[in-house]
């Protein structure tokens, strides 16, 4: 329902503003253009999206995700010590992080939910500090190959669609670090 308000608001704002500024003619033709551009963009990025989903699925099939999961266990046990005492939660957590890294959203979410459910058991609907940390980790997830964005860039004729990778990694790292630091500080100060 939230998106219904956002969409209606955007359309209403552009019509009102268009009437006030006498740009209403442009607004009308832009509506048609926008709808056409959406389909064009999807078609242009379809190839690269399918190719990379295929490559990710090969990586998953040859056990790369499991290997990554093992790599993350020591870091996770430091970040979420209480949750990681339970081996099944730890397995779900490390799978969640490595699937996020590989951009396998469909695999990451169910694993993360399983971990969150186990961590929330017996807390009466109040998020524990570790659960907040897990959620922050997932809202600021680092992706090794941001394939959708690269697909858009390639579709729009970028010279080198993947040249943004180091910038994406740097920005993600800074954002995760800020989120985790904020969570750490809030956990000391937050009342309730």
């Amino acid at each position, binding site marked *: 329902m*939230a998106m219904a308000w*956002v969409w209606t608001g*955007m*359309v209403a*704002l*552009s*019509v009102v*503003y268009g009437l006030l500024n006498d*740009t*209403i003619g442009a*607004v009308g033709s*832009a*509506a048609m253009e*926008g709808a056409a*551009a*959406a389909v064009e*963009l*999807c078609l242009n990025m*379809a190839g690269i*999206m*399918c190719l*990379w*989903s*295929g*490559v990710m699925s*090969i990586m998953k*099939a*040859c*056990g790369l995700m499991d290997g990554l999961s093992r790599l993350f266990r020591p870091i996770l046990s430091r970040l979420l010590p209480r949750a990681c005492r339970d081996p099944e939660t730890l397995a779900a957590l490390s799978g969640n992080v490595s699937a996020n890294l590989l951009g396998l959203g469909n695999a990451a979410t169910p694993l*993360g*939910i399983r971990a*969150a459910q186990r*961590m*929330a058991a017996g807390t009466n*609907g109040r*998020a524990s500090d570790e*659960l*907040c940390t897990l*959620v*922050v980790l*997932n*809202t*600021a997830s680092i*992706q090794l190959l941001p394939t959708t*964005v690269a697909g*858009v*860039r390639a579709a*729009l*004729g970028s010279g080198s669609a*993947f040249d*943004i990778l180091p*910038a994406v990694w740097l*920005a993600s790292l*800074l954002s*995760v670090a*800020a*989120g985790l630091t*904020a969570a750490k500080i*809030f*956990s000391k100060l937050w009342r309730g």
Partner: protein
Amino acid sequence: MDYSAYLVPLLLVSVAVFAMGKRVNVYSALTEGAEDGLRVLMRVLPALVGLMTAVYMLRASGAMELLGELLAPLLVRLGIPPETAALLFIRPVSGSGALAIGSELMASHGPDSYVGRVAAVMLGSTETTFYTIAVYFGSAGVSKTRYAIPAALIADLTGFMAAAFAVRLLFG
């Protein structure tokens, strides 16, 4: 700085050879994954049609520019290009909405321009925060989310600032 020219071909061949070494049927894994990619696209297309229509209308009316102008003094101080103002607001709320605004920015400024690159890095390094929070807390039966939302929004804001900073640093 031409490393990215090697990335795609080398990644393709090394993944394929490594998987063959593990006796994985590389070709069927590839086509199955490609089918998944198609499903993702089919899911995103209807939302993208709706949102790109609205975004193009906002832009044509001049309201988008106004938003940028209003926020410009603050954004410039944070090192964020004011052209990306609308992206900052929609990113935590809607993934396909952010994709619509981001690709419009990349199309109108050029994918290899400063603003185009910053928009791409912002999209690649942040998540649909409110959706993620709703999914995780909702399925875990948590109603008191405490400081999760402010902490996640701080991470988002840092991500936006870091995106602009990283593009300036790495692309001059």
